[in-house]
Every structure is written in C-alpha cells, then in structure tokens.
C-alpha cells in the first residue's frame, strides 16, 4: 500500500468525526450567543476555552495528578484481573465460581465505596482513588480474560490433541492468541472506567487541584466556565488513554483489525 493511499484511508477514518465536531462547536457558539443562554447552564465554547487558558497552571497540575491516579489504578486492576484470569482459566471449577462472581461484582457501583476508602488511606493520599479504579477495572478484565482463554474452538483443541501438544503449547499458541481480542475489549472498557473512577472518587476527597475536587469547588463558587474547563481536561484524559489502548491493540493484533475491516465491506 502506498503512503498516499494509506493517508487517504486514514483521513477517511478521522475526517468525518472531526468535521461533525467542529460543526457542533460552531452551532453551539452561535446559537448560545443568539439565544443569550446563561453561562451557569452551559457556557459557550469560547468562554470555556478562555477559562482553560486562564486556569491552565492549576488544571495541568490536576491533569497530572488525576491522570496518575487513573493510570496506576488501571495498571493495577488490569494486571491483577489478567493474572486472576490466567490463574483460574485452567481449573473449570474455579472458573465456574469466578465468572458469576466477577460479573456480579462488576455491576456493583464500586464508586459508592469511595468515602470508605478515604477512611482507610486518609484525605491526602491518592490511594483511595487508585483502589477504586483498580477494583472497577479488575472484574471486566478478569471475566474477559477467562472467556477468551476458554471460549476456544473445540476443533482447534482437537487439532492440538492430534499433535500431542503439551498444555503449555496449547496455552501459548491457542488460548492466549484467542484471548487477545477479548482482553483488548476489556481494556477499552477499563480505560473508560478508570477516568470516571478517579474523577468521581475525587468528589469525596483529594487535593484542591485534582480534577474532581476542582469541579466541585468551582461549581460551589459559581465559576462554571472553570468547572467546564476541568471537565474538558477529564474528557481529553479519557480519550487519550482510550487512543493509547486502541493503538496498543493495533500493534499487538494487526491481523484482527484487517479482518474486521474485511467483515464490514
């Protein structure tokens, strides 16, 4: 594939959403200006942009802090979830016990534990949010890892048996590659959950400059454009982490994306 064609294909991927996004911003700005919508309801994009520039020193600090919480919580949850999945997939009884529990646990609003985790680790520590994020991301990753390792084509297992393949080879050459699409689906879910968990966790405690705490403070002081600027930062954080996950997926499973593309034609 030539570079030009590759660029054309990629631009056809990102161009439509960008055009729609810009159009929405313009309509938002113009119509809110014309209709005189009050800033405490929803401020205009230019007002938010102004607050973003104005508050950048504190917002950038919040981005680093909240981003670290989300990232460390995510890495912990994903690592433990993957390990739990790998450890239990081999034993059917452990798996049958863990899948319903894991599915059940992932429906619990873990964020409700945020005030309690503050008691565990104290108001100054980032550990309450890291714990929340790790818990929120653990279960979907574990459940999907187990599914991916076990929902294998029975004929492929027979093929391996016909080669008298040792268990290690079956895991490495069949179960793990089979689990990758499931695992990356879980990673995408976990990335989204991580930013939500960190920001909402900060509603209950955390330094003044952390994104969640900053949003509650600013709304309390009627500084809505500042709160909106912080929300934009949180969105950008979530999208960035998501794009990293998608990029990792494409690097690790180049064959998967091309097959998907073929399926859509």
């Amino acid at each position, binding site marked *: 594939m030539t570079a030009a064609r590759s660029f054309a294909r990629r631009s056809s991927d990102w161009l439509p959403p960008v055009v729609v996004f810009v159009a929405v911003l313009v309509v938002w700005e113009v119509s809110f200006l014309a209709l005189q919508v009050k800033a405490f309801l929803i401020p205009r994009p230019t007002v938010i942009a102004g607050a973003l520039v104005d508050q950048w020193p504190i917002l950038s600090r919040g981005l680093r802090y909240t981003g670290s919480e989300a990232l460390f919580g995510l890495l912990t949850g994903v690592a433990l979830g993957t390990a739990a999945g790998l450890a239990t997939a081999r034993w059917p009884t452990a798996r049958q016990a863990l899948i319903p529990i894991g599915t059940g646990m992932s429906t619990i609003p873990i964020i409700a534990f945020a005030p309690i985790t503050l008691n565990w680790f104290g108001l100054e520590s980032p550990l309450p949010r890291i714990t929340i994020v790790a818990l929120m991301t653990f279960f979907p990753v574990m459940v999907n890892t187990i599914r991916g390792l076990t929902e294998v084509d029975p*004929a492929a297992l027979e093929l391996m048996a*016909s*080669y008298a393949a040792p268990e290690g*080879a079956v895991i490495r050459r069949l179960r793990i*590659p089979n689990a990758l699409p499931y695992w990356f689906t879980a990673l995408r879910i976990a990335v989204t959950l991580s930013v939500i968990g960190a920001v909402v966790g900060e509603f209950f405690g955390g330094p003044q400059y952390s994104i969640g705490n900053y949003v509650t403070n600013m709304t309390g002081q009627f500084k809505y454009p500042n709160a909106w600027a912080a929300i934009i930062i949180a969105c950008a954080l979530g999208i960035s982490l998501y794009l990293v996950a998608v990029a990792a997926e494409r690097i690790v499973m180049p064959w998967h994306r091309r*097959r998907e593309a073929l399926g859509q034609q």
Partner: protein
Amino acid sequence: MADQDPAGALVVEATGVGKTFGDAETSVTALQDIDLSIRSGEFVSLIGPSGCGKSTLLRLIGDLTSPSGGSIKVNGKPAQRARLDRDYGMVFQAPVLMDWRTVAKNIELPLEIMGYAAAERAKRSAELTKLVELEGFEGRHPWQLSGGMQQRVAIARALAFDPKLLLMDEPFGALDEMTRERMNLELMRIWSRTKTTIVFVTHSIPEAVFLSTRVVVMSARPGRISKIVDIDLPQPRNVDTRETERYFELVTEVREALRSREREAAAPDVDRIRAEGLA
C-alpha cells in the same frame, strides 16, 4: 494399491471396536463390532448415513475419543501411543486455521509444537506450500482465502511433519461441487506423491469411489460395517476416471450397499439419505 502391495504393513487394526455415548439410561450405541484393517499405502473411505459413526471411527483411530470396547492399533501400537508419537495428521471438515497466523505460519504450527528448528520449519513450509499450490499466498491470513484454499492450507499443515497416516473427516464437505471435484484431483496428486495412507470420511458416493482403493460402507443404529467394496479403478485417477464404465458400476455397487442396509433399517433413515441426495 493394496493389491499391488499385499505385504504392506498394517497401519490401522480395529478389532471388535464398540463405542457407546451417554450414561446407562440414555446410552446411544454409535459403533458396534467394528473390525477393520488398513494397510500401508491404502486410501480407505468410510461412507454411510448420518449417525452411522463414521466420524467417530475416524476419531477413535486418532485417539481423539476412546472406545467403549475392543482395541485399536495404529502402526502396531495402541492408538494413544500412536497419537503421542505423532503418527498421523488430521484434517477436519472446517479448516481450523489460526486467524492470527499467516498461511506459512499455519503450516508451521505442528512443526513449532514438535520443536523443529526455524530453518527446517521454513523449508518444510515452502515445500508444502508448493505441494498444495499456494505459492504466492504464504503471507496471507486465512480470512483472505477462499474455502478451497483454506482447506489446502489445512492439508499442507497436516502433512507438514510428514506423517505416514492422514485422517480426513469430510474435508471437502463444506465446499461446492466444482471445488470439491478439483480438490479430489489435488488430493489424488498429493497422495501419489507422498505415499501417505489415508482414511477419509465422506457422505459422497462419487467422491468415495473416485478417491479410494477401498470403500467401507457403514450403516446406522448401531453403526456397523455392512460391506467393503474394493475399488479396482486404475491409478493414477484423473478427470477421465469419472467417465469410465467401471466407475459407474462401482458407484452403483456402493449405492446399493448403502440402500440394502436402509431397507433393513428404520424408515426415517431412508428419508434422511434421500434428503442428502445419496439415494
């Protein structure tokens, strides 16, 4: 082949084999009193109506399931020993290729598992890609190939470690008629080139007659061998084989062997066979 090489070693030896599925109350007898010997270099087809246990018999030879009674020996060893010694290659109805591997890497899969060195794997893979005429497709992924091409990859993979026995479970069952006939010719070419002993499950009478040196006709409920038809068509088989008078006689003989069992069997089976176009 069996006639030309009467001293051919026994590759498969089934004695009094039975297979029952399910527990005591719900048990279904899939196979009963199966005696079958297959010698080196033979091409033996197992044919019969659905539920006659032909696939089960193949899987018993491959030790992918165990018999409820009797014994199965492969190359003079118990079937399990033969599987652990990697004495056979297997081709299923579905190609069962790994999506994440290219054609070349799929063919190399058994070699990787069996610990072949990288250079040897690449060499074998190249030879087999040539044998199944897939040169130029080495770097493709399975989903980029047609059904017939995928099945060729599966055959190449089964032959990669040079097994002396090839077990094929309706390998062309999912292909259209024209692709199937072309694959039959391909398989004849590969068989004459590799001198592999082949056990081939099919529900197509023309396919069984065209390919085989012997056709094992089976009947259902319980699954038994009702007749073994020697196919004395000359080798090598080619497109003209299908137009010879002897070919039609043998097709008729196999068809009648299938039908005579039906008359004795329950009526629903006859309908089933009609529906499948075998009657």
